Structure formats: structure tokens, C-alpha cells
């Protein structure tokens, strides 16, 4: 099978596997234990924190190790429930479910949850400015969209928020879900003046079940309670082997980031040319659009064939693709919500296919994919 679902998850890299095995064998102590083996583990953990912080361009004190992207988002969003009085959170309607699913719980607690639509997949600074008001306590905008690959200009969005805050004198927390950004495109949250950001190891060939929360706000109060690990933000015994494996893999990924980006962009262009030449339409931005997008993700429309039918046909040809976010394709309708918020027409939403690539993707595989997509178009009567 040829794997084109790297946005859903990626296989653990060699570096991560080696480090995982080494750390899991050598550091047997619990970092919270006071005996020498515990202290040794603690020292190793803190070294990793410093290294990761440096890779993300921030201080070690702003880095928290978590169980993954969803948990990192959750720590920030659920902290709103500890606020003395409810306010408003502004986010986009194209966020991952890890953010959007907080609507109900926050609304129950009296919060206003505003999810702005993103025509074409982008939130403009003007639209955000218009939505801001003196009730807003948090703005959460993802960096790279997991369904279409559109990249938000978070730096500009943060500026809008800061300018507004200066007029009211009230701080607004800016959170960014950057799970699909890290290791793919340059992203330094502190440089962009972002308050908190979420990352997940398994999206860049690190282990599953490990993530990073960058957070420089001291007012974030977690809901979960425990042994006080990660300064109380993420209690629970630290997954030292997983964390170190993630750190090592991140270092390697970032070292190769530019070269990989250029390699994948060539593949992306190839796929785009192949699909637009045989009846598919692009849902993701075109390479020639001048818009900012991640080449790792390309979303196309296989009208009139429903996504799930198309996926079966491609699976039979030996290709693993996805119909949207892998986390949501089990529940009907949710995979379409991002495209609805992007003003994609209903027929195209029903036929949307996500192709995503990663470090293991080869040119031969991409060529084979282009051939298979062309065949499938003929077979299924796909037309623009």
C-alpha cells in the first residue's frame, strides 16, 4: 500500500525509535522521585525541555510536555472554565474538533463561542478585527488547516488582537493549534507574539501519545489535578522516553525542513497538474494562486463520486487517502464542517479527498498516485 495520509499520522522515524529504546532502557526512574535514578531522569527531562524550547525559539519555562495536540489544546481551552466570569472566545469554523468541540462545554458555562467562517480557507485580519469586542478573552486560530493545508497569517492576526487590547486595556490570550505546522513550515510562536501553541509528535514521525504545549501565560489554570508535574499544567508521570524521542526527531525534522519542503512542493505541483488535467477540481489553493498553503496537504474534489466510494476505489488500487480529518471521518458530517466554513458547495464537500505527504513519500509513489487518480477519474466518470 502507498501511504498518502501523513496528516493523520506518520510512522516513527529511525531516530525516534533509537532514542526511545535507549531512554526507556537507561532512565528507569520516575522524574518525580528523589533518589538518584529519579534525579537522573529529571535532569534528562529538563535537558530535553531546554533543547525543544531552543528549537521552537523560546525559553524552557514556556515548554510543557503533554499527551498530544488534543490535550495541549484542551489545557488552554478548558482553563477558561476557571475564569471568575464568562466572556467570549473567538475561533475559526475550520479548527480541528479538539477546539470546536469545546463550544458546547463553554456555552454551558456561559461563554460565547464565536467560530468565524473562513471563505477560501483563510481568516482575514479585517474579519477578526470586526469580531473583536470587550468581552473577548481568547482568540484561537490554527496555523495549518488539517483538511486543506491553508496557512493562516497568525502574525498579522496577533497584531490585530494586540492593537485592540491596547485600546481596551484588557489582555486577550492568543492560542494557536500548530499541530500540522511544526516540522513542515517555519513556525516560532514567540516570535509571532503568540501566547500558547499546540504540537503533536506523531505528525512529524515522533511517537504517538506525546505532544508539546508552548505557553507563556501565567494565568492558565488546568482543570486536571495530580502530582504537580509540568508545573501543574499537565499532571501525571512524564513519558520520558516518548518526550526524548520526540525531541530527537524534531531536531532532525527541523534540520531537513527546508529541503523537504522544496521536495514536497515539487510533488504537490505534480499532483495538482495531474488531477486538474483529468476532471478533478482543487479545493486546496492552487500552487499558482499566490496564497500561503502547506504543500504537504492537497484537497481535491472527485465529483460526482462520494468521498467514501472514491476512497474504496483508491484503496483497491493500493493507496491510502482520506476524506478529511481522520479523527472525524468516523462521524458523519464533521469532516465536511471545515469545507462548509470555507464556503465550498455541498456537492464538492461530499466528494472531497485529502491527499497528504511526508518524509517517506517518494517520487515513484507520487507518479503511481497520479496514474491511479487518472484511471479512477475515467472509471468513475469524474468531471469538473
Amino acid at each position, binding site marked *: 500500500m502507498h501511504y498518502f495520509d501523513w496528516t493523520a499520522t506518520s510512522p516513527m522515524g529511525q531516530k525516534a525509535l533509537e532514542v526511545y529504546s535507549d531512554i526507556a532502557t537507561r532512565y528507569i526512574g520516575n522524574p518525580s522521585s528523589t533518589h538518584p535514578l529519579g534525579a537522573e531522569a529529571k535532569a534528562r527531562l529538563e535537558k530535553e525541555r531546554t533543547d525543544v524550547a531552543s528549537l521552537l525559539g523560546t525559553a524552557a519555562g514556556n515548554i510543557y510536555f503533554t499527551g498530544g495536540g488534543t490535550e495541549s489544546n484542551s489545557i488552554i481551552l478548558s482553563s477558561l472554565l476557571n475564569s471568575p466570569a464568562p466572556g467570549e472566545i473567538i475561533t475559526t469554523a475550520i479548527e480541528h474538533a479538539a477546539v470546536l468541540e469545546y463550544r458546547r462545554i463553554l456555552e454551558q458555562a456561559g461563554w460565547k463561542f464565536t467560530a468565524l467562517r473562513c471563505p477560501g480557507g483563510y481568516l482575514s485580519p479585517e474579519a477578526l478585527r470586526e469580531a473583536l469586542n470587550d468581552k473577548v478573552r481568547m482568540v484561537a486560530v490554527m496555523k495549518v488547516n488539517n483538511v486543506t493545508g491553508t496557512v493562516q497569517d497568525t502574525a498579522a492576526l496577533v497584531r490585530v488582537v494586540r492593537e485592540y487590547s491596547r485600546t481596551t486595556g484588557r489582555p486577550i490570550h492568543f492560542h494557536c493549534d500548530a499541530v500540522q505546522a511544526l516540522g513542515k513550515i517555519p513556525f516560532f510562536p514567540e516570535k509571532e507574539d503568540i501566547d500558547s501553541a499546540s504540537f503533536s509528535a506523531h505528525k512529524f514521525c515522533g511517537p504517538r501519545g506525546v505532544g508539546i504545549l508552548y505557553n507563556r501565560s501565567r494565568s492558565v489554570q488546568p482543570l486536571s489535578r495530580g502530582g504537580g508535574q509540568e508545573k501543574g499544567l499537565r499532571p501525571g508521570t512524564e513519558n520520558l522516553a516518548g518526550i526524548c524521542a520526540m525531541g530527537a526527531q524534531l531536531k532532525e525534522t527541523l534540520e531537513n525542513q527546508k529541503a523537504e519542503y522544496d521536495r514536497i512542493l515539487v510533488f504537490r505541483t505534480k499532483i495538482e497538474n495531474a488531477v486538474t488535467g483529468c476532471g478533478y477540481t482543487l479545493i486546496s489553493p492552487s500552487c499558482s494562486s499566490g496564497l500561503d498553503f502547506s504543500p504537504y496537504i492537497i484537497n481535491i474534489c472527485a465529483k*460526482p*463520486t*462520494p468521498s*467514501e*466510494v472514491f476512497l*474504496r*476505489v483508491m484503496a*483497491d488500487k493500493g493507496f491510502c487517502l482520506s476524506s478529511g480529518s481522520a479523527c472525524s471521518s468516523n462521524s*458523519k458530517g464533521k469532516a465536511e464542517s471545515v469545507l462548509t466554513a470555507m464556503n465550498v458547495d455541498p456537492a464538492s464537500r*461530499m466528494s472531497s479527498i485529502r491527499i497528504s505527504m511526508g518524509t517517506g513519500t517518494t517520487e515513484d509513489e507520487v507518479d503511481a498516485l497520479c496514474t491511479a487518480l487518472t484511471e479512477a477519474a475515467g472509471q468513475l466518470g469524474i468531471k469538473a
Partner: protein
Amino acid sequence: MERINTKEMNLYLIRLGEISLKGLNRNFFEKKLKNNIKLKIHPYRSLLTREKGRFYLYVSKDCPEEIVIKTLKTTFGVVGFSRALVCEKDWDRIVENAKALIENEPFADGTGTFKVECRRGDKQFFMNSYQIESELGGVVLDRYPDMKVKVKNPEKELRVEIRDKAYMYTSPVPGPGGLPVGTAGKGLLLLSGGIDSPVAGWRMAKRGLKQDCLYFHAYPYTSDMALQKVKDLARIIAPYNQGTNLVVVNFTETELWIKDHSKEEEHTLMMRACMMKVANMIAKKRDCKVLVTGEALGQVASQTLESMCFTNSMSEIPVLRPLVAMDKEEIISTAREIGTFETSILPYDDCCVIFSPKHPLVRPEVDQEQKSFTDMGIDELLDKCVAEAEEFEISYHV
């Protein structure tokens, strides 16, 4: 012939309902029921005898009780059953057996009302019925002090019969009723992955109709998960039907042909017509005398009276629709009872959205639609469907 020693076997009393009312052909029904029960209990040894409107089922002791209970709960013709204990007419043994019986259902929860009822066929026995009832009532109350004696309409009963031996049993666990499967001949059930068709099949099996099942699979437009769901549904209803054969027809080419050769609003009707034609051919090959569907009047566009008239016109053999006058809620209630509901609602559709017209015809004219069907020129494709159909045998074992 091997002699069976009933002393080494557990005894169950089976109450028969409608069969007991049969006249000269009662033997035919009873024989079928006996065979149906014995088949399901096999390879464990069993013996069935008939006495006074009841079956006495002896099952070898190595057969788990669960198998016997599941068998009796899924065999049509069984109205109720009880585990019975038999012993010599010795008072201490009788008390011992009474104590053993009340440790099980329905007495096990130790609450509610009960009575002990005795029939003393052997008038020589040293205690009379009233004495036996009083003494054994005391045994129950000693064990379950919260229970109350109630002579009229008690919730639970402990029954004792003093005949050649002492037979004891508790009030019966309900069976499914109906007539033994196979006594009404054989039909072909059009089984989809929905809620209705398994219930329709179950209802017809209850009237003694043995059924094969037919499923139309349209991969890749419907998923293999949808096919698996249908196999699972067939597996759930198979014990009631004394096993079944699931015939799977590859319907993809047919659906695509219909889509390209008929008007959009007629797609569903043409699909139903093709299903009827294929079902007729398969029924003929398998010696099925009727088709069974889960249609209920007015439930969807293809189930209006006019649509049913059209689909009927495409079938040479009768189409039985046991759910035709049932509300959805009633159907769901049966689906829950027989255990198909949770599988039926799994989200694997049995028809792809691209074959479902937005505005289907709801009041078709039979002549017009028959002409549309003929104009499609689909006969060859339907023959191919039948020739290439796959078959899966599904066991009656519970």
C-alpha cells in the same frame, strides 16, 4: 439403535401452543419441532418425548444449560419451557430438588409472590397435594423470607407432579411461540442492512416459513462493512430460521446501468424492479415459493401503494410483506427484542447516495414504469447477476 439412559440427562418441559390445536396433521408439526430442537442441540445427545400436550426434552448432562436455553428461546413452536428435576418418590429427595430449583430463575431474586402447586397422580403417595404444597411452601419461605404466598395469579410457581416418579419444575420461561420453521415451506427474504427486513424475516419464520436471504451488494458504492453488517444480521436471525443461506448479488453494474438508462426520478423504482426480477430467478433456482420484504406501507417513496403495485407487477411469485401495517416504533421494538437493532443501526449504508434521486416518483403508473423497465434493456445484466451470485451458509447453531 443406541439406548439412551435418561437418568444421565437433564430434563426440560416444553409447552406447546398452537401446535396442540392442530388436528390430523399435528404429527407433522410436532415432528418438525422435535427435529428443529434436536438439530440445534446436536452434537450433544437429546431425546424428545410427548406426553399430555407437552414435550419432555432430555439433554445429556455435558451440554451447557446455556445452549439448551438459547435453543428453546429461538425455536418457533416453543411457547414456554422449564428446567425439571426428577427423583424417586422419596420425601427427602423431593425437598432437596425443591431447594435446588428455587436457587435458579425465576425464584433466584427472592422477591415477589409465589405458590406451590401439586398434582398427585399416584394416589398411594403418603402425603396429599395440600400437605405437599404446604411443606414445600415452607421450604421456599425459609430460603426467601421476603416472598409472599399468593394462590391466585402468583408471580412464580413451583410445581410438583407425583406420578411414576416425582417431577418438579418452576413456572415456565417464555419461548418465542409460533409454528416450527419449515412447516410452511420455503421463501426468499430480501435482506438489507436496515432495521425492517430482519424483522420481516423473523416474523415469517415465526409462521413456519424457512427462508434463504438475498442481499444486493454494490461495491465500491456500498462498503464491505455494509456486507459484513448483513452477514451479521443473517447470523442473528439464523437460529430462529433454523439456519439460512445468504445469497449475495453483485449489483454495481446494474445500478450504474439504471443510473445511465432511466430518468432520475425513476432510479429507485427501476432498482426495486431489478431486485424483484433477480429475486424471482434466484427463488426459482432455490425452490423458494414466495419473496419476503421488509416494506411497510408509506414508509418511503418506494413503499407507497402505487410503488408496491409496480414492484408486485415485476414478480411472478407472491411478495409477502409482514410489516406492511406496522409502525416504525413497533418494528424497532421487535428488532430490539430479537437483537438485530444494534447491528441494523451501524452507519454502513446499503445504498449509495448517488443512486438515490432527490425527488423520486411516489405515485408511479404500473404500465408506464413497466415500459421504462423494458426500455432499459437490462435483462442480460440481471442474468449475469444471478449467474455470478455468491452464497454463504449460515449455521442454525445458537
